[in-house]
């Protein structure tokens, strides 16, 4: 289609060939140099992490328990603890997040005092520093509710942290559902619950999944909030009331408290970054699919 042949998005590096004015040239040079410098620094960091950590990687490292305070052995229990914390976090935040998103997007659209309040407080929640979540989780879950240092406390704290992320993404997904669907369903005399279950939620799941995956990414990298909630015990957890050390807390401990722990810290970092990379790729893939679906649908 020649007429509609406009590229959707991408670089415009082909803007102009031939003579350009000197300021354009100068800016191009500056921008390229900046990008090169940023790439250089980041590749430097990643290369350092790889160089120090790759020797420690092995299959046993992934499944064994740590020995000698983490200098030997593996990170199996930490991976399990991390996954358990994530599980608790998702099990709690997903229903609350979806419910809130549905309410905000479908029932409190125009505003209303309650809707505005909830929205405003979610905005604030999104900006709360993770260490404050740590303080809060420590005070509420560990001490006040008596859960102690446990995977449960950690997961609940994290679920508070990822909630705004989840709600925003899911709400965006719901808003992308064309109004015609709602009107058509209304005209057919369907109840609101039926519309929600049959039409809105299926249409909004990709947005929810993107939110979930982003939330998982944020939760995986978290140290400060978990240090004071899920604790430090590096044993394989037996139940959710056990304390469990997550990967990022393990990295922190190896780097800061264990003599000779650096190479293991870097190796753990590689595992964690790979996990995050998988999550990121998944996010991109899903987001692309979602966008694609939205375009083909409208």
């Amino acid at each position, binding site marked *: 289609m020649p007429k509609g042949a406009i590229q959707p998005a991408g670089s415009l590096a082909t803007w102009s060939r031939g003579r350009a004015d000197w300021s354009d040239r100068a800016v191009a040079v500056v921008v390229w140099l900046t990008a090169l410098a940023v790439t250089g620094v980041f590749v430097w960091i990643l290369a350092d992490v790889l160089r120090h950590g790759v020797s420690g990687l092995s299959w046993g490292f992934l499944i064994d328990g740590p020995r000698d305070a983490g200098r030997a052995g593996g990170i199996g229990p930490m991976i399990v603890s991390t996954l358990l914390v994530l599980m608790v976090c998702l099990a709690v935040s997903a229903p609350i997040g979806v419910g809130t998103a549905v309410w905000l997007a479908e029932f409190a659209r125009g505003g209303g005092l309650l809707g505005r309040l909830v929205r405003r407080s979610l905005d604030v929640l999104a900006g709360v520093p993770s260490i404050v979540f740590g303080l809060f989780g420590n005070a509420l879950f560990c001490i006040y509710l008596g859960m102690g240092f446990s995977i449960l406390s950690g997961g609940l704290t994290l679920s508070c942290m990822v909630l705004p992320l989840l709600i925003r993404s899911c709400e965006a997904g719901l808003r992308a559902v064309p109004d015609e669907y709602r009107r058509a369903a209304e005209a057919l005399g369907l109840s609101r619950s039926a519309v929600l279950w049959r039409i809105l939620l299926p249409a909004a799941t990709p947005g929810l999944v993107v939110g979930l995956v982003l939330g998982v990414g944020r939760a995986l990298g978290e140290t400060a909030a978990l240090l004071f909630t899920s604790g430090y015990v590096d044993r394989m957890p037996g139940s959710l009331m056990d*304390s469990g050390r997550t990967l990022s807390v393990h990295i922190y401990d190896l780097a800061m*408290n264990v003599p000779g722990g650096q190479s293991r810290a870097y190796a753990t970092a590689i595992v964690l970054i790979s996990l995050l990379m998988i999550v990121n790729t998944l996010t991109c893939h899903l987001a692309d699919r979602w966008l694609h679906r939205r375009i083909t649908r409208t």
Partner: protein
Amino acid sequence: MRYGWGAVLLVVFAGVGTYVFSHGLQADPSVPGDGLRGRLVLTGSSTVAPLAGEIAKRFEQLHPGVRVDVQTGGSSRGIADARRGTADIGMASRALKPKETDLTSHTIALDGISIILHSDNPSVALTDEQIAAIYTGKIAKWNQVGGPDAPITVVNKAEGRSTLELFLHHFKLNNEDIHAGIVIGDNQQGILTVAGDPNAIGYVSIGTASYEVSRGTKIRMMPMKGVEPSLANVRNGTFPLSRPLNLVTHGEVSQVAAAFIAFAQSPQVHDLVEAQYFVPIAR
């Protein structure tokens, strides 16, 4: 709907998993063994925690019915938790103070605190007075104590650490008078800091430092009052700045806790103590 089912499955999986884990996988009560059963919570000193963790693991192997949770914090936290009953056993990397007579301490190992310098620093030995002067800012350059013409970077520990308290006590200093250039949290951060700055002076656990020196990290331990900081000198009591690593209990001690403490003081764990570069107690 492909993603839809994926998401639903994910959430259901998370929910079921949560349920199962909160109910089903508790330690099996019917395990064979010597009948010891229960859970111990240890909190306190980050210096003791890695050692206690290793001891706990071996103890759990011997007594499958017992679980020992080790949380870090600091010595003062360990003492407070033991007193409040939040923890069964507190960990402290110092001796008990006179006003802490309500508690009982059980020494499991000895450690010393060594002044460390960067390995390129030519200064050989400093007197206690010189160290005190450096830490209070009265001596600000290395050439005042026979070193190169460079400013001294004073590395101090953050508030609450017993290493700090011991250091202050030995040199009769007040934390408010210390003129720190860098404040660190844990031992390893101190090692990395000094290894990264040729003009730094810091103090860390001898165990930590000797491990790092043996691995070729660019730090050097400085003799104090002519005594080389080594585990041997800590053991024979000649090193002036040494301390006990203690388990602390309050009042009546449960059978499990008593068993754990006895185990931690027994020769069965000496290899673990030495592996963490501490000095096992002779008994």
